[in-house]
């Protein structure tokens, strides 16, 4: 989230699209009801189904799964056409005025540079025109035909309300009504907040869905302001923490990158990361990258990381592919190229697309280790459960070891919520039976591996033998020890760059924040964005003062948020070019003539003058991007792409299937179905009664929603002769499931490109272990293709067929 949960109470309009906040985030949703009750805020829901969020909305519109970009580009078109633009904001704080290279263009659904063979773009034309001084050329009058604003206008021109209706199936009058409601938020004193989740990410163009809304929010001037923002509702209670500390194959903590093979040495690695400003006077905060990176290396390897050895850069693995995401790992596994899979807090048998492939892949492992507080289907993938897990155990040789772990209530530590708050919590109970803390298990493994390397040498023992392991009891790293390590420590006195005689933090003390990190080896920091969470003031994450002098839900002394305890990202943009809050009623920060002051930590240097230093300090431009240059693989603007499995062809290019640059393994391409055989659009989702595949173990949750079902319209039920509560078989090119039929008015057939489109809703909470009735997850049906940028699987739009079930497939 750019903002925080508590900030949602400041909004005038909530749009829930690409998510279902009331059902998947019921506790956070209280801030929506708060905004409605005490601020008169309105709620819009756009969703293929009339959800429980829609049940408390002011206005609802249906949409065909996987067509959000068209809706959003249509919205941007409408804003421009009807002058619902926060002009001062757009002109000052976005790259609307930047000139783009002449070669850049778009036609037939594709941007310039497409290579069909490689399924990739040459992105070199997706770039600004630069002057001789290296700065970008701009036209503040927005008259230049190559400025971003005019290119955007041309780009969205095709997305008329009629086109939205044709592609999305959203009735034109509903689209227009929503456009009017949203348009009101172009006023500097009215804001809209966007709450989204996996309904946008789980598409082969998920990142572009989110880009679309971010652009709309920028045009309305709603980023950085109270009650505004792009608010990603994270899917697990600590999934924000997971990404923050880099638990992805291509990341290290704080969104730094694992090097690639093309970056064999430190100099090459750093060269492409310390972005020089693209406009004079801008901050371009990533210029500090080396400080964070060197401090990370020092945190990892201490004295073994030296200036002479480039901070032990050679210890880091170098990726030969962009990422070893889970789709790739299971592809490799299925090819027999993986021996050991360590599965910590993850149930891929049900959580990863194309279950049949998952079973096949897991069956080819030599060893599978499952660390989990609960029994998972993955740990029992080899067990026969009839139709629910129809495998032959005698044919599976994989050895499976289960290591029971503690659950969250038995752990101490911080959970990072969607709003980036690190909230410390304490253990409420001891883990039962043989369950152990994850940290203890990892420590045991590490210490034994290190012993083996010490005894036997091995190909490259140094990174293991030299790993910093400073814990009082090496077998049990304590949560506070790990948190202090992430905060960072001064290894030598850290002095003020302006006055080297002034010691900011003495050697051996915790650094105050990442502002004190250095790239000369004098500081160590495990996760720079967390720096400040546990400094010499103590454990700031454990703070529990809920006072709020702002009245805006800032709560600065409650827990701690990254970065620097800042509650709203880009908050400098809550004030105009002179530093005056856009809305005096919701004043977060203002410029007092000398410095920024207010209720939140300014997201800019405190003395950076308004009018000179622009608010988006992480970007070398200093402003936000309506045109995202070559940063995304599938385009600098979002463009309509159909899901890989779609009932209609792409209206711009009937040869284009899905996202033209999404990675597709051959084996997976062979399992795509077409609408001839699979005429219905399916989408998957959570129900509020359950949390993923965990709560089916709980008898109370199981009683609240005991049995797998699918949701269909009354029209589809009638067409197929399906009775409410009757059994149905649902199948795709990849698999089949049996479920109860929930026949509802909440899903209505859509008309898209002249065709009637029926949607089948498939919730995801059932498996073959636990207290609830046995069932299936949607991943028995879903395709193994991911987003072009981050490989999130396309769970939200695929094709199935459905029929009344005959026989007794259900137990």
């Amino acid at each position: 989230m750019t903002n925080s949960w508590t900030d949602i109470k400041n909004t005038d309009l909530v749009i829930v699209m690409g998510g279902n906040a009331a059902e998947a985030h019921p506790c956070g949703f209280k801030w929506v009801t708060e905004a409605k009750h005490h601020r008169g805020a309105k709620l819009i829901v756009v969703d293929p189904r009339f959800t429980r969020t829609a049940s408390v909305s002011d206005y609802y519109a249906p949409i065909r799964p996987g067509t959000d970009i068209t809706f959003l580009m249509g919205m941007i078109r409408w804003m421009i056409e009807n002058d619902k633009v926060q002009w001062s904001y757009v002109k000052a704080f976005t790259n609307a005025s930047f000139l783009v290279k002449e070669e850049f263009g778009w036609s037939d659904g594709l941007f310039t540079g497409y290579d069909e063979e490689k399924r990739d773009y040459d992105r070199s034309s997706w770039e600004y025109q630069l002057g001789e001084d290296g700065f970008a050329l701009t036209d503040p009058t927005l008259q230049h035909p190559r400025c971003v604003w005019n290119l955007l206008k041309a780009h969205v021109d095709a997305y008329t309300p009629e086109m939205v209706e044709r592609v999305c199936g959203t009735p034109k009058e509903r689209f227009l009504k929503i456009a009017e409601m949203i348009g009101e938020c172009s006023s500097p004193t009215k804001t809209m907040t966007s709450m989204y989740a996996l309904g946008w990410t789980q598409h082969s163009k998920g990142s572009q869905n989110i880009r679309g809304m971010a652009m709309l929010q920028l045009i309305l001037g709603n980023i950085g302001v109270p009650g505004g923002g792009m608010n990603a509702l994270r899917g697990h209670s600590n999934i924000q923490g997971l990404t923050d500390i880099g638990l992805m194959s291509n990341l290290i903590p704080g969104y730094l990158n694992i090097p690639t093979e093309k970056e064999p040495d430190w100099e090459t690695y750093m060269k492409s990361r310390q972005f020089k400003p693209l406009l004079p006077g801008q901050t371009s905060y990533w210029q500090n990258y080396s400080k964070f990176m060197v401090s990370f290396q020092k945190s990892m390897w201490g004295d073994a990381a030296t200036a002479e050895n480039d901070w032990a850069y050679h210890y880091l693995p170098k990726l030969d592919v962009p990422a070893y995401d889970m789709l790739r790992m299971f592809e490799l596994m299925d090819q027999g190229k993986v021996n050991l899979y360590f599965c910590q807090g993850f149930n891929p048998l049900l959580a990863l697309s194309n279950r049949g492939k998952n079973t096949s892949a897991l069956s080819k492992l030599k060893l599978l280790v499952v660390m989990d507080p609960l029994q998972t289907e993955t740990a029992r993938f080899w067990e026969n459960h009839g139709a629910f897990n129809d495998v032959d155990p005698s044919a599976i040789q994989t050895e499976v070891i289960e290591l029971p772990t503690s659950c969250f209530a038995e752990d101490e530590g911080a959970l990072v919520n969607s709003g980036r708050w690190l909230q410390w919590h304490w253990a409420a109970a001891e883990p039962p039976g043989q369950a152990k803390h994850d940290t203890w298990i990892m420590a045991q493994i590490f210490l034994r591996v290190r012993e083996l390397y010490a005894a036997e040498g091995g190909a490259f023992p140094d990174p293991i033998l030299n790993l910093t392991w400073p814990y009082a009891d090496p077998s049990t790293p304590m949560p506070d020890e790990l948190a202090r390590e992430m905060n960072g420590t001064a290894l030598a006195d850290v002095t003020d760059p302006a006055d080297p005689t002034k010691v900011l933090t003495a050697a051996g003390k915790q650094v105050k924040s990442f502002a004190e990190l250095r790239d000369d080896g004098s500081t160590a920091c495990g996760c720079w964005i967390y720096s400040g969470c546990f400094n010499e003031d103590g454990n700031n994450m454990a703070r529990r003062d809920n006072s709020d002098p702002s009245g805006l839900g800032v709560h600065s002394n409650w827990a701690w948020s990254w970065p620097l305890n800042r509650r709203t990202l880009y908050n400098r943009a809550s004030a105009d070019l002179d530093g005056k809050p856009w809305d005096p009623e919701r004043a977060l920060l203002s410029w007092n003539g000398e410095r920024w002051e207010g209720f939140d930590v300014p997201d800019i240097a405190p003395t950076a003058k308004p009018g000179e230093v622009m608010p988006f300090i992480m970007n070398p431009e200093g402003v936000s991007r309506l045109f995202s240059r070559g940063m995304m693989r599938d385009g600098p603007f979002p463009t309509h792409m159909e899901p890989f499995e779609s009932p209609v062809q792409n209206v711009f290019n009937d040869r284009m299937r899905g996202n033209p640059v999404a990675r597709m393994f051959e084996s997976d391409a062979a399992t795509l179905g077409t609408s001839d055989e699979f005429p219905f659009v399916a989408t998957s989702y959570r129900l509020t009664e359950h949390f993923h595949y965990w709560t089916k173990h709980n008898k109370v949750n199981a009683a609240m929603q005991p049995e797998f079902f699918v949701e269909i319209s009354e029209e589809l039920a009638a067409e197929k002769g399906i009775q409410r509560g009757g059994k149905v078989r649902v199948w795709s090119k990849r698999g089949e499931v049996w479920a109860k039929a929930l026949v509802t008015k909440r899903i209505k057939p859509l008309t898209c490109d002249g065709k009637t489109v029926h949607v089948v809703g498939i919730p995801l909470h059932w498996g073959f272990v636990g207290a609830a009735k046995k069932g299936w997850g949607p991943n028995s049906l879903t395709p193994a293709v991911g987003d072009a940028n981050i490989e999130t699987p396309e769970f939200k739009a695929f094709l199935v067929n459905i029929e009344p079930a005959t026989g007794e497939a259900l137990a």
Partner: protein
Amino acid sequence: MTMAPDLDSPRTAVANPPVQPMESNLGQGDVVRSSAGGPVAENPRDLTDVAKLIDVSKCIGCKACQTACVEWNDTHPEIGINVGIYENPLDLTPEMYTLMRFTEYDNPDTGDFEWLIRKDGCMHCVDPGCLKACPAPGAIVQYSNGIVDFISENCIGCGYCISGCPFDIPRLSPTQHVVKKCTLCSDRVAVGQGPACAKACPTQAITFGTKDDMTALAAERIEDLKSRGYDNAGLYDPQGVGGTHVMYVLHHADKPSLYSGLPDDPKISDVVEGWKGPTKPVGIAAVGLAAVGAAAMALFTRSRVTPQDEAEATELVQEEMRGSGQPDDRGTV
């Protein structure tokens, strides 16, 4: 606000309740009505009326109230089946005192579809039909704050309360042979806490406090709903049962029955009124008992009154009539 010393009941479940242990502050000494002539307090404290307000316009149907109810009351609803609807369990049961009910409604006036979700459960009537119908002395009591409580040790499991309830709420446990329903968490209220459902509700669709405060909050919410085009928004506090201590804010207060059959104008059945109400002479009630019992059975299939129950109940009532010569309740409606 919580249990400040000058207050006799917790005012709201929204704020943090007291965490210090405290003595129960609600009990026999506060009983103002008791079924079948059961004991009432000699000089009951005049507690402030409490109420639970259920704002259906804020309810997201998450069932947190159901799970909190199960956990607080330590009940064990069965893991059932899906029959093609969102309700689970499928109905109120002796193990499930509250239930989200879901209604799909195409609003003919606006052309819009609405999903009306209502938390069902005991309404804690000012004039409780269950208490009037109950033949077992002291099995159903009403405290002076308005809470209607079932006292299981006095319950004979006859099911007459089910017949007496205009909202079809109590459920007979076939194993424990007692009837169960929401107690408005009288055991929590007794120690300064609001009901478990209100505490668990994530959107403050369920709030708890004095009836006056809840009525005022409802007025605020109704104003908001009217501003959003719900011209018939209103408070459900039906006077046919003297008002209730569980109230609803409805978008369509002119049509309560839209919400999974919430009675438009609930009244205690004439049968029950005739049988045990204060307006009828005791003698007629006693004489007519057998016939009335049969009629009640025919009317309310859910009551599961066995012939043996019937006989026992008859005997009890007759004994009561003979013994005390008093009306079978205080008759102070």
